[in-house]
């Protein structure tokens, strides 16, 4: 049975489908993890509230779409509005992130790093309950996906497209596109701009960077704000994906994979995060295929994600591309 299944798995159509799915998942993972890795790499803060802010982004993005889109809106207009929504959510959450950093994270830099974990953990509780209260006002179910937001997705994104023998969803291709834009954008920002240079210098050696005249405090604020903004943008994208959707549990659902991706890649390396997202996304897609077609065990893909984490930490504790010293944070 296993051999037959393997033979079926290796046919061009199935394998191609799995690869496209894997790339789409990788794109989502890299989007939810990149903010986390930027913040950790520079500041050594493991942001537990990242998932909650992704969830806030999903709801805000959904809100913008529901308000602007009517039944008769053309598909391309919807796409345009969606990119606009991502930009607006990114801007809003960047401001929120800046506010969080300057008011409550900043006093904690000279304490042991555990306090930043604790503080952001407390923040998670607060954010989730505030969202629940707001949802209560509008009579929305916090635990199930927000269907009205899902309905603003243009029809063609729900349909499959044939790429030679491979059948893939338009949504997957759309996600791959957005993931690529994000990766290229962050990479260009980090390597081609002066501010990116500051960030890389600060990640390498904070004291030396500030001795050379860089206002590291300001860089901290900007990076934290941008990281939160990225979380929000990722949330907006997830709002359109039926397997995720805008709901309160989305916070925990995204936080754990984001941690796995960041740790597997090596804390604080952007390149590692991208590679890890590819590894984890592919592992997820492959096990999802096997779980749907051969082995019957619910939660197998989830299990595999954590096994990837455990195995990586055993074989290479600092992560795929991690530098040992960064772990000392």
């Amino acid at each position, binding site marked *: 049975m296993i051999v037959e299944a393997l033979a079926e798995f290796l046919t061009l159509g199935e394998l191609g489908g799995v690869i496209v799915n894997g790339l789409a998942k990788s794109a989502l993972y890299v989007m939810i993890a990149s903010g986390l890795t930027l913040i950790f790499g520079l500041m050594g803060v493991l942001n537990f509230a990242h998932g909650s802010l992704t969830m806030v982004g999903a709801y805000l993005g959904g809100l913008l779409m529901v308000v602007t889109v009517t039944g008769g809106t053309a598909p391309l207009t919807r796409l345009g509005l969606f990119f606009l929504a991502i930009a607006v959510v990114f801007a809003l959450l960047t401001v929120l992130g800046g506010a969080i950093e300057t008011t409550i994270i900043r006093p904690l830099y000279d304490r042991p790093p555990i*306090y930043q974990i604790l503080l952001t953990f*407390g923040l998670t509780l607060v954010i989730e309950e505030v969202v629940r209260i707001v949802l209560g006002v509008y009579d929305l179910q916090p635990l199930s996906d927000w269907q009205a937001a899902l309905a603003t997705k243009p029809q063609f994104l729900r349909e499959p497209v044939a790429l030679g023998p491979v059948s893939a969803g338009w949504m997957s291709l759309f996600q791959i596109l957005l993931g690529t834009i994000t990766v290229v954008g962050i990479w260009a920002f980090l390597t081609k701009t002066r501010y990116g240079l500051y960030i890389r210098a600060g990640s390498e050696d904070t004291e030396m960077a500030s001795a050379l005249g860089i206002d590291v405090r300001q860089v901290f604020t900007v990076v934290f704000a941008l990281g939160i903004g990225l979380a929000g943008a990722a949330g907006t994208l997830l709002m359109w994906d039926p397997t995720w959707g805008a709901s309160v549990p989305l916070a925990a659902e995204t936080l754990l994979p984001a941690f796995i991706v960041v740790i597997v890649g090596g804390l604080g390396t952007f390149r590692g995060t991208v590679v890890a997202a590819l590894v984890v996304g592919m592992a997820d897609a492959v096990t999802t295929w096997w779980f749907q077609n051969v082995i019957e065990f619910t939660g197998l893909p989830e299990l595999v994600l954590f096994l990837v984490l*455990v195995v990586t930490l055993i074989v290479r*504790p600092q992560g795929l591309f991690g530098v040992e010293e960064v772990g000392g944070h």
Partner: protein
Amino acid sequence: MSRRWGAISAETEADAEAASEPPATTVETEWPREYLRDHTAHILVIALLALYPPVYHTLLNSPVSAETQMLLPTVETMVGVLYFGLFAISFDFISGYTGYLSFGHAVFYGTGAYTVILIANGKLPLLGPGTPFMLSLLVGGLIAVVLAILVGLVSFRLSGVYFAMITLGFAQVFYVFVRGWDYVATNPRDGPAVGPSHAEGFQIGAPGIDQLSLSIGVLTGDEVALLESTLSGTEVSYYMIGLVVLACYFAMQRVIHSPFGRVMIAIRENEERAVAIGYNTYLYKLGAFAISGFFAAVAGGLFAGFKRSASPENSFYFLVTGDALLASIIGGFGTLAGSLYGHLFDETVREFLSKAGQGGGLLPYLRALLGQETLDATLVGDTTIGGLIDLLLNGHASLYVGLVFVLFVLYVPDGLLGTLRERLGGTFAEALPAKLWGDSE
């Protein structure tokens, strides 16, 4: 850091004091008094906890009954405070004293809970449904010890954030596994419950001797006639579970005050130095992790014994560890007993600010106080006052607990007990007798 060093030097001073005690002859006659003196704080706390059910009961039948119901947690909630407090204490034992944040601690709690229920349902080989509860607790604890050693062997090669993440990873593997394994329950997502093969309550006491054991559980607990009143099943559970928790607490406190515990603190303060002076810190960490896992499983077993069911969400999930984390930070990280007070504080806030179970809290009190007319009065648009307080107080306790937690992290980083210790310049247990009876010298 300076505070911790201060605490250590205060403790060593106390040691020096103990060493320079009066000659042996006087010690022999003096020791019961000295013993009581050293344990004044313990006796006080135990007495307060023991008096809680009758006091609560009396207040409930007095003119301030509405206020009592609003402000104080019910006895049933207090049972939860005890067993979950034990879990938080075991979490603090490893995380607060060695500095290794065990973010997957819920796996041990869940192991204990599931072991008790599986044994009661006759699903564990060799142990039938008739196995005494005390033995089930022990078996759960031992399974957790084995698990802790296996997880620890791998995890203690890492430190800091990586250690927290790998333990979280292991715990989530078990969580997902248990949630999908249909051997443990017909619907593993909802978790197992104690079946008809074990209809009677779980007994705490000397195993096999009925006269020395009492059953626990809200419905299945024994009722005991005492003086003119009767203790309900819940109250009996409160005392019996309290006894187990107390024994576990003293065992852990004993370990912390032993040379072994000193090495744990040394690891937290400066692991490199501990290695340099010749300690095999790996083994010490592993040992501490195993001990901590054992007591976490006992706490989980008590929880399952009292509730008679468990679900993956309230035993194996990582947010269960999060609750223990809340408790130990609010109570004081690295203070052991503080975690219990932290959880008591947490539960009291939760029950006060949110309608939870039978506990009353602010919402029903406000409703009764304001009266229907005020509640129906409109504020803005079609929002009524009643609707507003309902919105803010119905089931949103996490919001307030989260705010309290953030404020604690920012402004009271040492927690309730830690701050108290800093004010007193030593532990409460040392400072209280000195206040009450003057210095022993």
